[in-house]
């Protein structure tokens, strides 16, 4: 009886600890909502996001004089429904953001493990490349690559992955350096495991936490970069509804005071990036004590 009571206490204590560490409920909800909106975009949008009617240009949102319930958040310079474009924009940001973060993560984690575990000239080569690429401002590097390969969603993912894998590689390599001195790795070597087996079975599971934390923190950076590239015209090609592209279009109506075309897409970007950053910060403290000082 004593035991069960203790167990109950522990459970309550653990729940309290979970609460007190401030599980970021709001950011999680925001990301989940955005994900659902992105998945069901074609079900919930009232209009086709890529086709407008030129007779309906620059309608303001419904609560402003001249607005109508037909276009809740107004229309843009081609008479396209802003709400529909924002919803489909969530899909573009989600797909590009998550794919890029995962591809960069796979590449960076893989190279980080190889670099840290094998050491020697392999390590030197990978780390010199990492240093050099980290020295280039990410945005400039991405613009350069985009200027070569031309705009498309697929290319954006490749470019973002090519630019951002270095962040993973650097951190993961550092962890592997300390992991490989640990007893369980030494025992695995004594037991005759091959280098490949050790890297896959013993090192990889131990750096996964860090990789996940980094991925969450990178999500915000990647989304801002994608928006910047699209804004400059080297990202997602028009007429696709990406938030960065909407901001570029919105600038055409800015001086005339069509504020909703500039304010609303930006709010969407900030909402998503903020949610990703808050979740990443929490995960960092929760999952990975080593990254706390990062």
């Amino acid at each position, binding site marked *: 009886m004593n035991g069960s009571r203790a167990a109950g206490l522990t459970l309550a204590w653990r729940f309290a600890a979970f609460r007190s560490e401030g599980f970021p409920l709001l950011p999680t909800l925001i990301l989940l909502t955005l994900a659902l909106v992105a998945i069901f975009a074609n079900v919930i949008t009232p209009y086709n996001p890529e086709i407008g009617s030129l007779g309906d240009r620059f309608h303001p949102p419904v609560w402003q004089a001249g607005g109508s319930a037909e276009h809740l958040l107004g229309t843009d310079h081609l008479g396209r429904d802003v709400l529909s474009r924002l919803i489909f924009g969530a899909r573009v940001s989600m797909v590009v953001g998550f794919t890029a973060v995962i591809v960069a993560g796979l590449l960076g984690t893989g190279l980080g493990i190889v670099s840290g575990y094998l050491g020697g000239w392999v390590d030197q080569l990978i780390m010199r490349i990492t240093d050099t690429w980290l020295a280039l401002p990410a945005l400039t590097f991405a613009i350069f*690559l*985009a200027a070569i390969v031309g705009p498309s969603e697929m290319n954006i993912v490749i470019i973002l992955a090519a630019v951002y894998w270095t962040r993973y590689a650097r951190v993961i390599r550092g962890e592997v350096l300390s992991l490989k001195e640990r007893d369980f790795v030494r025992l695995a070597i004594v037991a005759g495991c091959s280098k490949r087996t050790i890297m896959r079975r013993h090192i990889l599971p131990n750096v996964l936490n860090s990789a996940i934390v980094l991925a969450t923190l990178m999500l915000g950076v990647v989304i801002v970069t994608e928006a910047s590239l699209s804004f400059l015209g080297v990202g997602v090609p028009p007429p696709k509804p990406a938030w960065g592209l909407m901001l570029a279009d919105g600038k055409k109506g800015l001086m005339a005071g069509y504020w909703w075309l500039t304010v609303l897409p930006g709010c969407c970007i900030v909402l998503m990036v903020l949610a990703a950053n808050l979740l990443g910060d929490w995960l960092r403290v929760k999952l990975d004590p080593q990254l706390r000082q990062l």
Partner: protein
Amino acid sequence: MRRFILRRLGFAVVSLFLLSVTIFFFVRVTGDPAVLLVEPGASQADLDAIRQQFGLDQSLPVQYGSFIAHLARGDFGQSFYYRTDVLELYLSRLPASLLLATVAMVFSLVIGLPTGIVAAVRVNGWWDSAGKIFALLGLSMPSFWVGLLMILFFSVYLGWLPSSGSGTLLHVLMPAFALGWYFAAAHMRLTRSSMLEVLGSEYVKLARLKGLPEALVIGKHAFKNALIPVLTLAGINLVLMVNVAVVVETVFAWPGVGRLLYEGIAFRDFPVVQATVLLGGAMIVTVNLIVDVLYAVIDPRIRYER
């Protein structure tokens, strides 16, 4: 000391080499560079002439050699759009970028330093939380969106500031704030952590023990020492600002190197794009080298590190 400097110099050279290889590699591998190097809509004869001129029919190592030889002579090619030497074009845009970066730096320090100090002095208090929210917003709001919002507010609604262009002091205010915004958050975070570290040190305790007023302890003893890492970061960031201002300069039609890069993309002016990226990277590698060496001069312990 000399060994340390030589070693760092070696690293910098390797970095520059890898930078040039990276640029070279991506241009050659991702397609026919001749297509990038001729003007859009050029004839087959023009393409062949370019291949001949840049030796694109030769082997890759030979090509890389001539690529480097051109760069070493300061020959970055001719701009298709402006019909001038790319390096000259870049240098003519640099002063505007430096002005923008300097004002942006002033903004970021004026905002970042006081908020960082207050957050550290009132650690875990109300000010600290406000500072955390500010830092988070700084990282999450894209600088070009901040710029667009400022145009909407200060130019369209209030009519106080010009929305784009350059020439007067008023023109630089909005782009500089938009650019400095992100860095203000970074400087605030570093000031806070640096102040916290110094405030916990022995000599600050001693200053307090001997009965110095708190304002003097913070202002004179703590702040001065906490400033060192912040100013180092600010020095690196100044160079970074010149090179990441592309989007902000585009929003405000500011005639700096970022705008040059954007025009290079818009007009398919590839030599300009390539030169801007190469020179930007070289600038950053150089600054990192200078900072490393200066640190070694100041702090002997660093010299003996691996």
